[in-house]
């Protein structure tokens, strides 16, 4: 099972969200991400297929986005949640 800091990865809400109003489907993020987070589909061209493959706290794909179409959750909230889960697991 994949974990981040001892917490199961699927319990951590950290992955990019695509703003389809801004995305121009240039596929820079798809080409950049080595973790297979994005995939191309026939219907909507680009989707976040594997959210839990995304490296927690990594926002590197958003830096490649010329349209500013990728956003991430607020870090402090995610950190608090990870801490709470850690306490539960102890």
């Amino acid at each position: 099972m994949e974990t981040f800091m001892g917490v199961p990865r699927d319990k951590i809400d950290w992955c990019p969200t695509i703003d389809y109003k801004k995305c121009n489907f240039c596929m820079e993020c798809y080409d950049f991400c080595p973790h297979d987070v994005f995939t191309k589909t026939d219907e909507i061209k680009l989707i976040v297929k594997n959210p839990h493959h995304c490296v927690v706290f990594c926002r590197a794909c958003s830096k490649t986005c010329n349209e500013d179409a990728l956003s991430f959750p607020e870090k402090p909230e995610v950190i608090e949640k990870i801490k709470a889960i850690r306490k539960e697991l102890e």
Partner: protein
Amino acid sequence: MKKAILCCNGLDKPVGKIARKVALKLSQLESSEIICLVLFSQFPNRYHKEDYEAVVVIDGCPAKCATKIATNQLGISKRFLISELLKEHKLQHPLSIQSEETDDSIVESLLPFFEKEEHKQERKNETGWDAKAFIYQILKHDKYQFRIPEQKDMFFTENDTWCFINNDIARIGVTDYVQQSLSDILFFNTPEIGKKIVQFDEVGSIESSKAVFEVISPVSGTVIRYNAELVDHPEWINENPYEKGWIAEMQLTNFEEDRMFLINTEEYYKFLQKKVAQHE
């Protein structure tokens, strides 16, 4: 010797148009020369870096065409990215590439950030804390070798950053895995001195032609110093990211709590071993 500005040509995106307008305004205010991006990319010999005392690069969007064209050919003194400045300072975005209605006010609100003086920092280690020579464990994987310092009071994150604790101060940096993944590091974007940050927040970033890597802080605290030498020598991070390629120093606020989320050399070795094996 004169100053020069190289900017986005501003024909594709609204933020690019703003980059061009800011550049024109600055060149007027500071009597600097504008380097034509298209001319320079076609005829690099038209401009010589020895002719300029400083070259400021202004990009519009993260494609950073101006930076990419100038890198290695003109010595870049300072870089700005309009899309990031607008976001960071919560400023209004330009309406469209055609509409000029809000452009002047956006340019005016951006100008102070270009005039702001840089954080002044002595280019030496005031602590007398010289780059420490560490003893390393070596993780071998295919043709790669990753150094991991074997050092008491040194800890790591699963985001491939490290901290070395000296009383209530932590020196932080990135690991060998980061520098090898990025390959040649071209820029160090410095963190703000005095900024209070929480663990896992960003402490500056480093950039290669492949990607931008936000340096994830292993600890909570206040940024008290950064490695100013890296501004001129970002390649030091490639040479040794633990010794002369350290990133910043932080005044710690609650290391006991931070420690819960940190791993030691042995644990990081195992973590990295698994990580590189997955990427095959």
